[in-house]
C-alpha cells in the first residue's frame, strides 16, 4: 500500500516536472527549462532509487534501506516537479499558479531530504541495522539536522538561489530572519557531514567484514568513494547560475548507489567482481603511467637534444623503450598496491604463498603454508594418487575429502583442499591453491611415496601378526598334544614300574611303544606344516606329492622337478598350504589342483578347487598369501566367483 502511494507521488511529481518543463519551453523561457542531460540523469536516478527501493521493500520484508531509497526517489521527484511548477508560477508568469512562491521556498532546501535518505542507506546497508549504538546516534543526528535545516529554510525570509532571487517567501516568519538563516546553514552543514559519516560507516563495515560479505560490500564502497567529491561540488556550485554540475554530481551518483546497495543486500554472486574490478583499475592506472612516462621521456629527450638533427625520432625511440620497460613492473606494483588497499587478505595470502614458492623454508609443507596463508589451521590437503584412484594425506594415509577446492592439471586432479568456510573464503582458497599448483604437484608425488611406505608397514605388520598367531598355534599344539602324551606315557611307565608284575610290565611297555609312535607322528605333522623335510630334500615337486597324501580329498599336482632358490620354494610352499587349507576348510572342495610352472624369470603357482567360491579377498588366509607373495617381490591374483570354485594365482620372481 505504502509502496503504491509512493509510486503515485513519484508518477505525479515526475509527470508535473515534464509538463511544466514543456510549458516553459512553449513560453520561450528556455533559460528556465532543464538541460536534457540533466533530465535524463534525474530520471535515471529516480527510476534506480524507486525501483530498487520497491524491490527491496517487497522482497526483503520492508528492508529499511528499501524505504530509504523510496524516500530518496520521492524527494528527487518532488524536487523536480515542484521546481518546474515554481519556475512557471513564480518566475515565468508570476501569479499564474497558486502558491508558486511558497512552493519555490519549499523546494529550495529539499536537497536535505535527499542527503538524509542517502546517509541512512549508507548506514543501514546491507543488514538493515546500524553498525552499533554510536553510529546509530550519528545516523539519527543526521536526520534531525536535515529536518531542522529544512524547517528553518522554508520559514526563512532570506532570498533563495537562482532563478528565484526576487521571489518573496510568503511563509517567512518575520523577526526570526537571522536565527533561521543560521539554523538552515548549520542544518545543511551537519546533514552534509552526516552523509560523509554514513560513507565512513559503510567503509568501517567493509573493513570489519570478511570473505564473501566483504566482497559484496566492495561495489558499494567503490560507488561511495567519490562521495566527498560530490558533496564538495554540490557546495561549490550551490550559488552558481548553472546548476548542472551540482545536479550531475549528486543525481548521477545517486543512480549508482541504489544499484550497488541492492547487490550488497541481495548477496548477488560476485565471485569475479573483485578480479574484474582490480584488473580494470590496474589497467586504467597503468595506461596513465605509461602515457605519462612516454610524454615525460619525449619532453626530456627533446629538451636535452635541442637543435640536434633527428632529435624527434630519438626522443620517440627512447620514450617507447622507457615506457615498455616501465610497463611490466608498474603493472605488478599497481596490482599489489590495489590488492593491499582493497583486499588485504588476498594480498597477504598470496604474499605468504609466493614467499614459500620462491624459497621454501625447510620443514614447512605446502599444507602448512596454505593454512598460514588463509589463516585456517583446520585446512587439510588430500592428494590424488592416480594409480590407486585414491585420496591420501601428505603422510600417505587414505582420506575422503569432502566439500573442498579441487586443483587440476591437464591430466587429472592433483589435490583437494578442505577448509573451514567461516575462516577462509572459497574464492580466496581457489586463488591461492591455483598459485600453489606446482608445489602441490610435488607434494602429491611425495604423498604417493608415503602411501607405499604405509602399505609396506601395514603388510609387514600383518605378516608379523600372522607369524605370531602361527607360533601360538604351534605352541598350543605342542602343549596339548605331544607334551601331554609324553607325560601320560611317563605316568603309565611309572605305574607299571610301581606295580612290578612282569606280565603287566610287558603289556605296559608294548602300549608305551604305540603311544610313542603316535607322539612321533604328531610331531612330524607339526614340523611338516612349518617347513617339511621333504621340501629341503626333494624340492617342491616331492613336497607336493607328500601333501596330496596328507590332505583329505583329491589333490593333484603338476610341478617341474627342478630346484629353485630355497626362499622361493618356501614361499611357494606356504602359498600352496594356505590355499589348500582354505579350499578344504572353507570352500568344502573335493578336488584341488595345484600347478607350478617355471617361467623365464619367475615361478607361477596356481591352486584351483571345485568348492563354493566367493572367497573374501580381505580374509586373513588370502591376505596372508598376498602379503607373502608381495614380500617376495611377486603378486597374487584371486578369482573366486560364487559357486564356481576358487583359483589363486601367484607369481614369484626367481632365477632358476
Amino acid at each position, binding site marked *: 500500500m505504502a509502496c503504491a502511494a509512493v509510486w503515485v507521488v513519484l508518477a505525479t511529481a515526475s509527470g508535473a516536472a515534464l509538463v511544466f518543463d514543456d510549458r516553459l519551453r512553449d513560453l520561450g523561457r528556455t533559460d528556465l527549462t532543464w538541460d536534457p542531460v540533466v533530465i535524463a540523469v534525474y530520471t535515471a536516478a529516480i527510476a534506480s532509487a524507486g525501483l530498487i527501493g520497491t524491490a527491496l521493500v517487497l522482497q526483503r520484508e520492508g528492508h529499511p534501506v528499501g524505504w530509504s531509497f523510496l524516500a530518496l526517489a520521492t524527494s528527487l521527484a518532488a524536487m523536480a516537479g515542484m521546481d518546474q511548477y515554481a519556475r512557471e508560477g513564480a518566475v515565468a508568469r508570476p501569479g499564474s499558479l497558486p502558491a508558486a512562491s511558497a512552493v519555490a521556498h519549499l523546494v529550495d532546501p529539499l536537497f536535505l531530504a535527499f542527503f538524509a535518505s542517502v546517509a541512512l542507506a549508507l548506514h543501514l546497508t546491507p543488514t538493515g541495522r546500524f553498525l552499533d549504538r554510536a553510529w546509530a546516534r550519528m545516523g539519527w543526528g543526521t536526520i534531525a539536522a536535515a529536518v531542522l535545516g529544512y524547517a528553518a529554510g522554508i520559514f526563512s525570509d532570506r532570498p533563495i538561489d537562482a532563478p528565484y532571487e526576487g521571489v518573496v517567501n510568503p511563509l517567512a516568519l518575520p523577526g526570526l530572519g537571522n536565527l533561521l538563516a543560521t539554523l538552515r546553514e548549520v542544518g545543511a552543514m551537519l546533514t552534509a557531514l552526516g552523509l560523509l559519516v554514513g560513507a565512513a560507516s559503510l567503509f568501517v563495515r567493509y573493513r570489519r567484514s570478511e570473505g564473501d560479505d566483504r566482497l559484496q560490500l566492495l561495489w558499494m564502497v567503490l560507488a561511495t568513494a567519490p562521495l566527498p567529491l560530490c558533496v564538495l561540488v554540490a557546495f561549490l556550485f550551490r550559488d552558481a547560475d548553472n546548476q548542472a554540475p551540482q545536479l550531475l554530481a549528486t543525481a548521477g551518483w545517486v543512480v549508482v548507489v541504489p544499484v550497488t546497495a541492492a547487490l550488497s543486500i541481495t548477496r548477488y554472486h560476485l565471485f569475479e567482481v573483485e578480479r574484474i574490478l582490480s584488473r580494470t583499475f590496474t589497467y586504467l592506472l597503468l595506461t596513465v603511467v605509461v602515457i605519462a612516462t612516454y610524454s615525460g621521456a619525449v619532453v626530456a629527450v627533446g629538451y636535452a637534444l635541442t637543435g640536434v638533427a633527428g632529435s624527434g625520432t630519438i626522443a620517440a625511440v627512447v620514450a617507447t623503450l622507457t615506457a615498455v620497460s616501465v610497463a611490466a613492473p608498474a603493472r605488478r606494483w599497481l596490482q599489489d598496491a590495489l590488492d593491499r588497499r582493497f583486499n588485504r587478505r588476498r594480498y597477504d595470502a598470496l604474499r605468504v604463498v609466493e614467499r614459500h614458492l620462491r624459497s621454501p623454508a625447510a620443514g614447512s609443507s605446502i599444507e602448512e603454508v596454505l593454512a598460514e596463508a588463509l589463516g585456517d589451521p583446520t585446512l587439510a590437503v588430500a592428494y590424488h594418487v592416480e594409480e590407486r584412484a585414491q585420496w591420501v594425506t601428505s603422510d600417505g594415509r587414505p582420506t575422503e575429502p569432502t566439500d573442498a577446492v579441487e586443483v587440476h592439471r591437464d591430466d587429472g586432479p592433483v589435490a583437494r583442499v578442505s577448509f573451514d568456510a567461516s575462516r577462509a573464503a572459497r574464492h580466496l582458497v581457489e586463488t591461492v591453491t591455483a598459485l600453489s599448483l606446482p608445489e602441490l604437484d610435488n607434494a602429491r608425488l611425495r604423498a604417493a611415496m608415503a602411501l607405499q611406505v604405509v602399505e609396506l608397514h601395514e603388510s609387514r605388520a600383518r605378516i608379523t601378526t600372522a607369524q605370531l598367531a602361527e607360533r601360538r598355534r604351534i605352541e598350543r599344539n605342542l602343549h596339548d598334544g605331544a607334551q601331554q602324551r609324553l607325560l601320560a606315557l611317563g605316568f603309565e611307565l*611309572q605305574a607299571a614300574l610301581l606295580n612290578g608284575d612282569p606280565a603287566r610290565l610287558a603289556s605296559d611297555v608294548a602300549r608305551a611303544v604305540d603311544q610313542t609312535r603316535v607322539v612321533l607322528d604328531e610331531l612330524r605333522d607339526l614340523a611338516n606344516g612349518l617347513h617339511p623335510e621333504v621340501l629341503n630334500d626333494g624340492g617342491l615337486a616331492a613336497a607336493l606329492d607328500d601333501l596330496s597324501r596328507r590332505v583329505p580329498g583329491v589333490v593333484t599336482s603338476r610341478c617341474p622337478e627342478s630346484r629353485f632358490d630355497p626362499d622361493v620354494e618356501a614361499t611357494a610352499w606356504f602359498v600352496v598350504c594356505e590355499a589348500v587349507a582354505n579350499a578344504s576348510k572353507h570352500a568344502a572342495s573335493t578336488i584341488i589342483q595345484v600347478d607350478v610352472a617355471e617361467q623365464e624369470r619367475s615361478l607361477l603357482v596356481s591352486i584351483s578347487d571345485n568348492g563354493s567360491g566367493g572367497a573374501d579377498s580381505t580374509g586373513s588366509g588370502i591376505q596372508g598369501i598376498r602379503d607373502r607373495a608381495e614380500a617376495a617381490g611377486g603378486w597374487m591374483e584371486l578369482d573366486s566367483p560364487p559357486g564356481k570354485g576358487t583359483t589363486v594365482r601367484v607369481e614369484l620372481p626367481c632365477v632358476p
Partner: protein
Amino acid sequence: MRAVIADDSVLLREGLARLLAEAGIETCALVGDGEELEQAVAEHRPDVALVDIRMPPSFTHEGAQAALRLREAHPELAILLLSQTLESRYAATLARDHPARFGYLLKDRVLDVATLLDAIERIVGGGTVLDPEVVSHLLGRRGNGGALAALTAREHQVLELMAQGFTNAGIARTLYVHEKTVDSHISMIFSKLGLLPEVDAHRRVLAVLTWLQKAPQPGD
C-alpha cells in the same frame, strides 16, 4: 587315602590315576573342569584333590580359582595344584595366602613318584608344598647380593627347604642332619634376614615367602 583328579587331558588324568592306584591311593573321581571338580569333592569328600591349574573354559587359572573356592567350602581338603608351566609369583602368592593343606608342583615333577607321594602326604598332614623350581626362581629374583649373601651354603639349603614347606623334621631328614642343627640354622637365617623367629610352620612359610617376594632392597 582317597583322591579326586581334575585335568582336561583325559590321557593325563588316566595315567595319573593309574599311578596313584599303584601307590595305594584310591581315585574316586576323574573330572575335566572346575565345576565338575567342585561337584565331585562335595559328593565324594576325598582327602586330596589334584588340580590342573589350566582348565577350560578360559585355560588361564580356572583350576586355581576352583581350588580357592574349594578351600573356602572344605577347609579339611588337601589341594595339590599341578602346572605345566612355571608361574612362580602366582604360586608363591597362593601358598602364602593359604599355606595349610596346599601344594603346588610342576607336572614334570609328578613323574618322580616319590616326590608326588611325599607332597601328597605332607599336604594331607596339614603342611605346605612349593615346587623347588618356584623357590629357586624366587631366590634367583632376589639376586646373590644383600642379606642372602650373608647366608652360608648350608643355611641357603635350609632356607630353600623351608620355603618349599618342609618341617624341621623334614629338613633334617633331607639333609641328613640332626633336628637340633636345623633349629640353630633356622634361627641364624631369621636373624640374618631380619625376621622374627616363627615356631608355627605355616607362619614360617608365610614369613619366608613374603620376604622372598618382596622387591630386593639395598642392604637386604
